[in-house]
């Protein structure tokens, strides 16, 4: 399933950010995902306001030493994984 770059991901129902022992986590029904570095930067932008391409743009700036295409591929891969886990809803880009 390919992602629409204009769509705006947000955390799905039953998913939210949490914190335990200074570690940020994505809490989901019956499971949790530790967030650090890039994964935290990505998930905290899944707010229904940032489009996929905006998230890619912002992270390419943030990790400017990394190869931009690699950053993009990593983000798309991570978002696809979260979608498969039903952690994200994608609002249509056409508003």
């Amino acid at each position, binding site marked *: 399933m390919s992602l629409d770059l204009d769509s705006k991901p947000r955390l799905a129902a039953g998913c939210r950010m949490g914190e335990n022992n200074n570690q940020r986590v994505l809490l989901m029904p*019956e499971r949790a995902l530790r967030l650090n570095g890039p994964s935290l930067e990505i998930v905290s932008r899944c707010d229904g306001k940032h489009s996929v391409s905006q998230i890619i743009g912002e992270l390419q700036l943030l990790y400017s030493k990394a190869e931009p295409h690699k950053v993009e591929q990593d983000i798309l891969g991570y978002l696809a994984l979260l979608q498969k886990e039903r952690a994200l809803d994608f609002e249509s880009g056409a508003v």
Partner: protein
Amino acid sequence: MPTVQQNPLALVAELTHRCPLHCVYCSNPLELQSRSNELSTEVWSRVFKEAAEAGVLQADFTGGEPLARPDIVDLIRSARAAGLYVSLITSGLPLDEAKLETLVHAGLDHFQLSFQGAREETANDISGTKSHQHKLRVLQWLKRYRIGLTLNFVIHRCNIDELEEMLAIVKDSGAGCVEFASVQYYGWAFANREKLLPTRQQLDYCVERLKRAEEEQQGKTRILFVVPDYYAKYPKPCVGGWGRKLMLITPSGDALPCHAAPVIPGLKFENVKDRSLREIWEHSEAFQKFRGEDWMQEPCKSCDRRAQDFGGCRCQAMLLTGNAAATDPVCSLSPQRHKVDAILAQINEQGPAGAEPASPITVPVGKIEWLYRPNPS
């Protein structure tokens, strides 16, 4: 002495053994706790704080029926305030629209609704209560809220053939996840096992149908299938490994590594009224007993899979072999696997419960003599 590997991650809070349902496969122990033995709101609130401090992320409120607790809203609030993610595992029965709204507003993260079947008569016979229609109403009410929703269909020989109708309920519900959880044979299910174990033919159908359903529901609903492990080649990594991830607190406050642990003779459980959760996690004899690998016997001891399945389920080993440290006998490598095979042979010879071997699989559930669990005082 085995070392403590990590923090507990999940706290299963069995708030009460009281329940309006009398399911024939209930996982509660045969000896149920009465209301007068239940922990108070204050003790539970302290337990939630201690759990979060010990590293626990998730609290699963279950029972019995957790909604039977009059203080359920306060309990959700205090678990949320402690920083936990709160799931309610419920029959949905003692619920009306107003009560649901208060639960959601109190901060409930995830609602897990159990189903006993897809057809009213089956579901009501299995639960020993008129419950099915009400559950369907609860599903409609839930559509108003943006809350995590999992449907849990407990499946077995008498309802597995309703799978197509169960999938129709799932499709209409908008649930993010559905579990088709085969009955596991402990507690009341162990007592009713010969009537509940599915046939191999039913299981094959189920696996094939759910594979297709997974494709149909991709991106909408995650579909999880818990196999009946008597049919498995290798055992389940029970509770993610003994004393590795999970703590269960009984209605009266005993801390268990697994809900079925009291079937193992000689295990001494600590109570949360006497000790902090962290102390119990680190030092309780019961948690230490099968933690790590020191307790393992052959073939587990030298098996490549021992870090994957941890030797399977200690309680099942106890129930089927009389030795809690034995390899889980559902494992094909277990020298006692023949015991499980003998049970399966019997089931597959006699066909569905109450029916002739060659007849259709639908069973008049009401005609089976079940052992129903009672409601404790």
